[in-house]
């Protein structure tokens, strides 16, 4: 009788390019529908969120100063790495309750969406910037600039495609982010963090926490050093919390649907624009 | 106000008027092009040995003592006796209180004694104290004096003060050579580095030097390039050759060779000598020795085989 014992994975948080446990030491039990194998998922705390924002802030400036080409290459690399790990994600999605065909569609969709946004890296600026013909002898131009640190409340139902849909447009635009992953389907989020870590994504650009919306939503929305928040969902109560707390520091708040993520409308350059500022500069033209 | 040290001297006002602008991106591109030079085989060995002979072996710590300085002086003259034919370093650089010790130890070696002075590294003390310090180290036998400019005055725009101070220190040096430290890390822009270089040379510097080594960044490639170009323009204008000393942040043989390439292609043959070029460094010598050994034996080296003093 040779029963080989599995070495079970510990699911941790992803902060500043490292995989720490939650500083609170808490966990919640999670099991997939099928065989009832139980896994302990970190129950992220406000302090984890606080630390993640510090990491994201530190990572922001260097990240936004990389060339657009470089950011595009990195997103393409994330796509390559995810493609290489498709089996792992198929298994996790299945464990999380998806049928095989659905899981395959989701993995393909996630990879292709990463490639899609990689392609926008050095192009959205050409669409949204302009040289403005002001009626005075000035050279006047408007350019896009990343808004800063973005907190993201990722879709609950779509744990991989939803995650990519939330993160890609934010980071391709030069922002850094802190993500609250799906509570009910947490496995893919941490595995995705592993993909990020092997894709030349600098530490701190993406930080992923598992935990409860009820506990952390207010933190995500109120933190004074976060510049924007992207919330995926349609719960009126949650939306109110997000929008009210965002007003504390005039955070840019985007309320986004978490349905129909497979459709083309769920991706596009206008999603990038949501976390961009526009800066206009004047300079005289004269000898 | 001018100081009549040599003919052709300019007023501070005229130095500033003709101040050169430096484009940072362009300067960095020139640096990147220079650093692509591939120096191999014999030319690498020649460069390594040349670099060794140009080092101002330096110890500038609050915890320096006569014992420490004596050991360093011995190392200066005996870099790696196991390998014959190596040059000695150019000089030892120490704090004022260690000058007499160093001078004594270096007797007969041909290695110069350089002293930092003028309230090194910050320079935040009165001019009287600075000049006294200079006279003292010269008296103790210093062959060279490394002074610091008053960055506060410079950044405030009081260029006349900076100029006068350098000129006064030069006078106090007597026969000793004067190196003027610009502390480029605090000046921040290449325009200011160029302006400070011009000012220092006009005021009588024998060498211009990048840094004290106590402030980051110390010597950086674009800064060194700008200073070399300032030296070149000054030479064409006056016929006088001023030396260059990058200091701090040069820890590897590779960097040393890159700077030599920069020197060669900016100032040419005449500056490739310890009389006009020094490197302020402490751990560099050992890295160069390791590279020399690697070049001659073909095998990568370990620090365990070289003395640390």
């Amino acid at each position, binding site marked *: 009788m040779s029963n080989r014992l599995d070495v079970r994975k510990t699911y941790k948080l992803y902060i500043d390019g490292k995989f720490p446990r939650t500083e609170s030491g808490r966990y919640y039990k999670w099991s997939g529908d099928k065989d009832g194998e139980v896994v302990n998922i970190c129950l992220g705390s406000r302090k984890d969120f606080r630390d993640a924002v510090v990491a994201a802030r530190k990572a922001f400036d260097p990240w936004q100063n990389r060339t657009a*080409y470089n950011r595009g290459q990195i997103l393409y690399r994330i796509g390559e790495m995810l493609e290489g790990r498709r089996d792992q994600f198929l298994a996790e999605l299945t464990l999380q309750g998806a049928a095989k065909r659905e899981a395959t569609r989701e993995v393909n969709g996630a990879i292709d969406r990463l490639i899609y946004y990689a392609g926008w890296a050095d192009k959205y600026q050409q669409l949204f910037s302009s040289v403005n013909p002001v009626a005075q002898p000035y050279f006047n131009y408007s350019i896009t600039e990343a808004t800063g640190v973005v907190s993201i409340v990722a879709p609950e139902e779509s744990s991989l495609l939803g995650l990519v849909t939330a993160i890609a447009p934010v980071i391709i635009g030069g922002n850094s982010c802190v993500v609250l992953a799906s509570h009910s389907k947490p496995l893919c989020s941490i595995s995705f963090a592993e993909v990020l870590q092997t894709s030349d994504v600098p530490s701190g650009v993406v930080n992923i926490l598992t935990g409860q919306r009820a506990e952390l939503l207010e933190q995500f929305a109120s933190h004074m050093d976060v510049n924007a928040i992207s919330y995926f969902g349609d719960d009126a109560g949650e939306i109110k919390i997000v929008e009210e707390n965002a007003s504390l520091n005039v955070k840019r708040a985007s309320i986004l649907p978490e349905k129909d993520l497979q459709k083309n409308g769920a991706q596009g350059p206008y999603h990038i624009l949501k976390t961009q500022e526009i800066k206009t500069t004047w300079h005289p033209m004269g000898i | 106000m001018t100081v009549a040290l040599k003919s052709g001297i300019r007023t501070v006002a005229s130095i500033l008027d003709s101040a050169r602008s430096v484009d940072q991106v362009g300067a960095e591109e020139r640096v990147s092009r220079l650093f692509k030079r591939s120096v191999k085989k014999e030319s690498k060995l020649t460069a390594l040995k040349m670099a060794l002979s140009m080092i101002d072996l330096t110890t500038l710590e609050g915890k320096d003592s006569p014992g420490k300085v004596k050991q360093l002086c011995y190392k200066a003259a005996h870099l790696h006796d196991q390998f014959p034919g190596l040059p000695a370093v150019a000089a030892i650089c120490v704090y004022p209180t260690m000058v007499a010790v160093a001078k004594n130890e270096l007797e007969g070696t041909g290695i110069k004694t350089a002293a930092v002075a003028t309230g090194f590294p910050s320079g935040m003390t009165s001019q009287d104290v600075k000049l006294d310090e200079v006279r003292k180290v010269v008296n103790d036998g210093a062959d060279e004096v490394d002074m610091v400019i008053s960055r506060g005055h410079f950044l405030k725009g009081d260029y006349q003060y900076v100029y006068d101070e350098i000129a006064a220190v030069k006078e106090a040096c007597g026969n000793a050579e004067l190196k003027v430290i610009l502390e480029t890390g605090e000046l921040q822009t290449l325009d200011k580095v160029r302006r400070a270089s011009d000012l220092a040379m006009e005021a009588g510097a024998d060498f211009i030097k990048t840094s004290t080594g106590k402030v980051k960044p110390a010597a950086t490639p674009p800064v060194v390039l700008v200073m070399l170009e300032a030296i070149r323009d000054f030479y064409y204008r006056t016929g006088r050759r001023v030396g260059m000393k990058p200091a701090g942040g040069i820890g590897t043989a590779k960097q040393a060779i890159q700077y030599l390439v920069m020197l060669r292609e900016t100032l040419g043959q005449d500056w490739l000598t310890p009389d006009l070029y020094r490197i302020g460094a402490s751990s560099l010598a050992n890295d160069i020795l390791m590279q020399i050994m690697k070049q001659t034996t073909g095998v990568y080296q370990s620090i365990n085989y070289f003395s640390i003093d």
Partner: protein
Amino acid sequence: MGNTETKIEFDSDWTYDPAPQATDFIKLQERYGLYINGKFKPSDNGRCFDTINPATEEKLAEVSEASEKDVDRAVRAAKEAYENVWSKVSPKERGKYVYRIARLIQECAREFAVIETMDGGKPIRESRDIDIPLAAAHFFYYAGWADKLDYAFPGRKTKPLGVAGQIIPWNFPLLMAAWKIAPAIAAGNTVVLKPAETTPLTALKLAEVIQEADLPPGVVNIITGAGETGAHLVNHPEVNKIAFTGSTEVGKIIQKSLAGTGKNYTLELGGKAANIIFEDAAIDQAVEGIINGIFFNQGHVCCAGSRLFVQESIADELLRKLQDRMATLIVGDPLDKNSDIGAINSKAQLEKIKHYEKIGVKEGGSIYQPECTLPEKGFWYPPTLFTDVSQSHRVVQEEIFGPVLAIQTFRTVDEAIQKANNTPYGLSGGVWTEKGSKFFKVTKAIRAGVIWANTFNKFDPTSPFGGYKESGMGREGGISGLSAYVELV
């Protein structure tokens, strides 16, 4: 100004030993076929020609010469691939193919760089650090547009044109192939490309890469040959669009032969760019910009800064600095990592440059060339300055396409602008001044498609490139580069 006895001596006892780039891992075929419909096949009449290394005059390989029949085969393959395959591939998947090509170029980068240098004569430092990375970047950039074309043109959707016939020059062989192929296929067209006859090898290696990328057969076809092959391609009735980069002389011939055919075309032709240095320029960086402007790629650059205009008040100093800088330029074996200036691309080109040297001297120009030892075999020419010349001299008016800089002085801004524009060309220009408002004003006044302020010879796939007037029409790079390959509906 200055003591005339002062001189910087650049000759030194310490010189750089040869630093040759390794070439032992390069795999070249003895003979290359034409890449048509996904396979390499010999030309219809079996004719071949040699391609040599201009630095050594050694033969590198034999390359097939495409006859009219071969051109026809290639165009029909492209047309079929367009109608039956490529137009049915979803834009998203089209993009992925182009990404694959980009990645493969990156993986084989060093090999591409060495072959480029051996075939064309440019220094390995340039092919390694500029040509090949930019080529990969172009494929990357346009790969991203494939499924985003609906956003590129406000209010309009796009449709590909069909089959694009593309003819490229010998000065940036792989890069020009990238500039042509990437936007064309990303936008849904298929391609027949003819590389220059003296530099076919990197295009053929690109064909191998395209095979590796599993691009459907016929989407890209690469046929080698000379002027006749090019003419057959231009005149083929099934080609929907012609893209040509080369001399103005040939460009005009092509434009004429396309008259009445209804074919779209873009032309990227010659230039004689003015590089203007104002007295308030950052002078040492300006010197570097001038050097890069005219000696990059041995001056074989359509946008080279070949006319220098320096404000008279700094002219002497600038000239002295230029000459000092030229003294450190190393002319030599292109495969040596330290070479700044490589071989002239061909005997014919060398003869042309020497011809202009004679003209310049005869016209009364003063010539300056630093001392350099040129190798015995191969085609070489030293970096050269002509002073005491004016707008009326031929060496100032005509494109030499070599490392020859004509220098004039100017006094006022208006004079500089007027003389800069005083040419039938209009590809590029340079303006050097530290005063912001001045460079905005001057760059606005110069009639050229690419203007570099306080820099020169900078390229990027996002940045449109192309000329005014006889320097051509149409732009490559950026969104403008897409419009050449689509119909707006």
